[in-house]
């Protein structure tokens, strides 16, 4: 996953919250309009319907204004913007209650969820200030019961408020309960929100640390690659020059070579060649292990296997071995690491060829699993096989079974270690089955996508 998708963006977050608030208000406006209309025309309550519709219209107009301003809002103004919205909402709520029975109207409970919204969207301090504003406005509603700035006629609550207005104990109790409810709501909500915000900050810090770690890792990886390249250039360059120089002598390009000289130079040339191969495999294995990602590309596995099989045609012919390739993929394309697949195939085939007697058989089988999600590659031979107690160790670096036959076979002991590394990097499996004296079969299953994977990570 790229760091871009992980990065926490406070501006985006704030924008989302504001648009949520505006959406909630659209719902409230429709709801309010429905409640007023139903109360007046269906329930035939004697409401001051024009005042209430005016309040509804004010809410509608303000929300339009908010929605317009939201588009070009600057980040630093966002908090003020939310504060203004919530304060104005509280004022509209108070206005609507004032003309619909005041504290006798059970809708005064709506103050509570305004507090929840304030606690979620605002800083703790701002939320408590909004709570205090709500308490002040509620006090105004209670005061209206005594002094009646707005006559609460002729509402359904008229009779109620007549009685309430004189019941001081009840009003005090209502006030106390309201204040407690408001502040408790803000307290509890802000507590939860604080925890969440702290987690968010921690997460953000963790993401930051991860990014640093990732960069360090990439740097280390590059350093390692540079190291490997240096070794490649120095050791391999020298080795290949030694080998070429000896080859030129052996080929008689500089004149006839006496038999004894030819034999000695030949030994040196063969050793330099096998050392070259050893260095190559060692470097390849360490690069594979240093790799974090493998790059999937679209390839036709059948072609790769055919190509590798062709590479071995001389070796196969020298030992009169019958090599068969059965390609059951019908030319299908899959997404794998092409270099990896090629090398895997090369190592398994090389291994089979090394341990198969002259006149033996090697069979390569390639197929796609039933759901085409698994590429299956198997290499069977009729070679010396592997003893049961050696089976668990065949993939270890430098492993070579301690049997007389092996001393004749030049081997780096890295081939199968490379094979299992490639399979593991593809999150695949490899298994081996063997009967000593009769042969071995290596089976690999490699998950393949139909789309390029975004750089499968290897843990």
């Amino acid at each position, binding site marked *: 996953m790229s760091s871009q998708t992980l990065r926490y963006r406070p501006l985006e977050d704030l924008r989302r919250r504001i648009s949520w608030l505006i959406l909630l208000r659209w719902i409230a406006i429709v709801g309010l309009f429905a409640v007023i209309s139903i109360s007046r025309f269906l329930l035939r309550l004697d409401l001051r319907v024009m005042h209430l519709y005016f309040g509804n219209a004010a809410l509608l107009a303000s929300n339009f204004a908010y929605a317009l301003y939201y588009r070009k809002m600057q980040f630093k103004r966002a908090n003020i913007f939310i504060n203004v919205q919530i304060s104005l909402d509280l004022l509209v709520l108070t206005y609507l209650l004032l003309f619909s029975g005041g504290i006798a109207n059970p809708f005064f409970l709506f103050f509570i969820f305004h507090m929840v919204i304030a606690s979620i969207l605002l800083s703790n301090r701002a939320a408590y200030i909004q709570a205090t504003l709500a308490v002040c406005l509620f006090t105004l509603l209670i005061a209206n019961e005594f002094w009646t700035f707005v006559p609460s006629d002729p509402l359904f609550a008229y009779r109620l408020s007549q009685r309430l207005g004189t019941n001081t104990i009840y009003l005090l109790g209502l006030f106390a309960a309201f204040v407690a409810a408001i502040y408790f709501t803000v307290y509890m909500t802000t507590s939860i929100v604080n925890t969440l915000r702290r987690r968010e900050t921690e997460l953000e810090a963790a993401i930051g640390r991860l990014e640093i770690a990732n960069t360090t890792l990439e740097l280390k990886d590059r350093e390692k690659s540079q190291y490997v390249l*240096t070794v*490649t250039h120095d050791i391999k360059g020298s080795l290949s*020059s*030694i080998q*070429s120089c000896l080859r*030129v002598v052996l080929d008689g390009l500089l004149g006839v070579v006496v038999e004894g000289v030819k034999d000695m130079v030949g030994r040196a040339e063969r050793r330099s060649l096998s050392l070259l191969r050893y260095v190559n495999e060692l470097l390849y294995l360490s690069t594979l292990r240093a790799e974090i990602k493998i*790059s999937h590309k679209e390839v036709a596995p059948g072609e790769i296997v055919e*190509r590798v099989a062709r590479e071995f045609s001389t070796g196969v012919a020298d030992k009169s071995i019958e090599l068969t390739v059965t390609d059951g993929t019908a030319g299908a394309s899959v997404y794998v690491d092409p*270099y990896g697949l090629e090398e895997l195939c090369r190592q398994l085939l090389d291994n089979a060829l090394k341990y198969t007697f002259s006149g033996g058989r090697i069979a390569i089988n390639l197929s796609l699993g039933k759901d085409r999600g698994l590429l299956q590659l198997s290499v069977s031979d009729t070679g010396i096989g592997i003893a049961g107690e050696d089976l668990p160790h065949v993939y270890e670096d430098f492993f070579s079974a301690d049997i007389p036959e092996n001393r004749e076979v030049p081997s780096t002991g890295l081939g199968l270690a490379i094979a299992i590394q490639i399979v593991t990097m593809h999150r695949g499996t490899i298994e081996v089955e063997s009967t000593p004296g009769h042969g071995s079969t290596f089976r690999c299953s490699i998950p393949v996508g139909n789309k390029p994977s975004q750089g499968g990570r290897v843990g």
Partner: protein
Amino acid sequence: MNKKAKIFIIEDDPDAAEVMKVTLQAQDYQVITASDPQKGFVKAKQMKPNLIILDVMFGKQEMTKGFDYAVKMKQDKDLASVPILMVTAVNIRHPGFKFSPETDAEYLPVDDFIDKPAQPRDLVEKVEKLLEQKVSRWRAWPKKTD
């Protein structure tokens, strides 16, 4: 077959260069060598060789300098039509740089590749093939021309 063909080798490893030189001289080719790609480029323009053998890696830090010079030669009117045989130490079996002649050749204006260490038989075979071909497939780089 043109046995008097002029072959220009640009290779910074003197031993590798000598081996190729001896191998090709044994086939009666006329061989000139250069160890520095810039000097080699200038010299090649004067010599007008029939074939250029170009190494990829020049020093540890310049692992793909040969690529740059291959492109540079194709953009030069004197050298554009000369086939290039590239000596690679960088393919799948040479870790650290994932270039493979099999898949990436179309981005590189060279006519053939030979792996290091270049085996005499292989080298002579490829040289003969390119000399028969005479003109580089990439003389109108970046367009392939055959």
